[in-house]
């Protein structure tokens, strides 16, 4: 990503230095404006993640739990903002401890599509109403995907 950016910036500089400077300025201004909001969100996420340990997640999503496991997966997935490079190894561990594929599908899908902790940032761009509707629909969508996964896995 950084290499691509550096390369494109260089090409852009050669083609039109003035335009490039304007572009970089525009981009950096946007970055600086959103920075305080981002910082406070990652501070809050840091605290939440500290208290929501892997063991806790495993306990709630575990083995013989029925629909409660799906609900727990959907809620945990919506609240957490775990980057993929942590979420997938975690999902791999959960799978080994006996969490079903369908529960994992709900967890992964809500994790990706619903971001309760990033609502303040999303609302800055889209407004609070649109943000809440999008997250609500994504939550329902994630549950539908999970249910479809259960269905497919019982067929296969």
């Amino acid at each position, binding site marked *: *990503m*950084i290499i*691509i*950016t*550096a390369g*494109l*910036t260089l090409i*852009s500089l050669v083609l039109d230095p003035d*335009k*490039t400077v*304007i*572009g*970089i*300025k*525009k*981009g*950096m201004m*946007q*970055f600086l*404006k*959103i920075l*305080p*909001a*981002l*910082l*406070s969100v*990652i*501070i*809050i996420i*840091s*605290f939440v993640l*500290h208290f929501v340990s892997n063991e806790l997640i495993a306990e709630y999503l575990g083995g013989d739990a029925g629909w409660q496991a799906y609900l727990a997966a959907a809620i945990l997935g919506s609240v957490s*903002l775990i980057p*993929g490079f942590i979420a*997938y*190894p975690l*999902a*791999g561990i959960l*799978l080994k401890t006996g969490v079903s*594929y369908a529960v*994992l*599908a709900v967890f*992964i*899908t809500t994790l*990706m*599509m619903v*971001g309760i902790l990033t609502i303040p*940032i*999303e609302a*800055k*761009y*889209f*407004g609070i109403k649109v943000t809440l509707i*999008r997250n609500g*629909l*994504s939550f329902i*969508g994630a549950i539908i*995907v999970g249910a*479809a996964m259960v269905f*497919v896995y019982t067929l296969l």
Partner: protein
Amino acid sequence: MKDWFKKNKYDVPVIMAFAIFVAGSFYFHFNPGIEIFKDQFWMFFKEMIFLLPAMFILIGLFDVWIPRERVQKHIGESSGIKGILLVMLLAFIQVGPLYAAFPVAYLLWKKGCSATNVFIYLSAFTTAKIPMLTFEIGFLGLKFSLLRVLLTIPVFVLIGIIMGRYFNRNNCKIKKV
């Protein structure tokens, strides 16, 4: 300066309190505080500080180089299925967390991308980035990933269409931050 504080009236106190909390944790050897800083905060901070500036520079360059007519023609209101496929492709090849997609969404919209396609872009970005998929396949298997992506695509296209309708009907806007 005054404006800046006013605009960030919730964020500045949080950041200051956290800075004091971390400094205090290190001073008094308060382990949970040090862990929160080292294991959690630092990881997110690194991702943010390395990845996001690069992304915002790309956004800025895209803004000055790509004319509105071009974007509008390919992913605007009347772009249909082709437009949907194009925004999905754009989303799939990106990296980064969800919050990195919002500024891109703003830019696309400003350049004439239809609201429906903006929301499809957001969902596609979150569900099936190719760099992340390789990771997912490694830990959960090809079958799981393939099924999840195939089942999710129709769901998020539908969400995109619903959101697009709502967005247009209520004359919503994506604001510049």
